[in-house]
């Protein structure tokens, strides 16, 4: 194309005003991922009750597109570690995490999963699931209210949509 014809082309802003959008594939994929995270149905303790409650009619997590709880790690995007992880359970949790297809995320729901909670001095409890998995979102509370889980999922959506703002830690 010749330099003299450049003025015939419209700028991106002008195109967007006309309803034509430009984006990258990554952005579209992340946008889609962020709005349809499929959690892994995975409850270890009482926080799982709040997680169930968040899906039910009163709090209705499906408003945000996150209601598709999968029973198989191979179909899930995000593992919500809802409850106390013991050392005996830890190998299974790790294996389930590694069975999930990438990209995958982990939410630590509740004080036990965040840091060991009231059981931090116990011989049997892992002091925070971040000792064995890379955690993306921490939700404190004992147990956290369903609103807190919804807020955490929305924070994860922000993280998925803005990968430049967060750098993934390698384990």
């Amino acid at each position, binding site marked *: 194309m010749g330099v003299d014809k450049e003025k015939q082309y419209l700028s991106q802003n002008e195109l967007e005003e006309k309803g034509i959008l430009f984006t990258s594939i990554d952005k579209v994929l992340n946008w889609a991922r962020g709005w349809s995270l499929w959690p892994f149905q995975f409850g270890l303790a009482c926080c799982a009750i709040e997680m169930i409650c968040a899906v039910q009619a009163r709090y209705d997590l499906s408003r945000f597109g996150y209601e598709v709880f999968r029973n198989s790690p191979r179909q899930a995007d995000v593992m919500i570690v809802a409850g106390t992880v013991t050392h005996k359970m830890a190998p299974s949790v790790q294996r389930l995490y590694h069975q999930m297809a990438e990209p995958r995320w982990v939410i630590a729901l509740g004080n036990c999963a965040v840091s060991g909670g009231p059981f931090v001095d116990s011989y049997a409890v892992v*002091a925070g699931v971040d000792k064995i998995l890379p955690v993306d979102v921490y939700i404190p509370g004992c147990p956290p209210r369903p609103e807190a889980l919804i807020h955490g999922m929305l924070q994860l959506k922000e993280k998925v949509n803005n990968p430049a703002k967060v750098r993934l830690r390698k384990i």
Partner: protein
Amino acid sequence: MNKNYKEMLDKHLPQDAVWTEEKDNEFYIKDQDILEVFGFLKEQGFNFLADISAVDYKEYFEVVYQLCSFDDDRHLVVKIKLDYQNPQVQSLYSLWKTADWLEREVYDLMGIKFINHPNLERILTWEGFEGYPLRKDFISQGGRE
């Protein structure tokens, strides 16, 4: 149903069985009499081994057996004192299959060996765990930073 256990059982029990003073359904036996006594109690209708637990009294261990009956509301508690240094007692697996897991739990948390147990391994803690968590001298190593 006669619930005076002492009257009902005492003449059949070994000489060194000792009834506790606080309760009328508890007695101590010696560890070498265990299979004989429990075999007899099972014949008497105490056909359900409800629980096995253990207590650490620092000088000795006490293993507590809870026996119930499926037929009525009878409930019996049998206790055995064991040496602290080398606590071991005969397994009840030959009488009740449920003793398998109950004894494994006691072994796991209290370190009491059950002789002739088919698979005496840890059941609650994980492989490679060291120590017996419910003993008084166990020091818990948590993950606090």
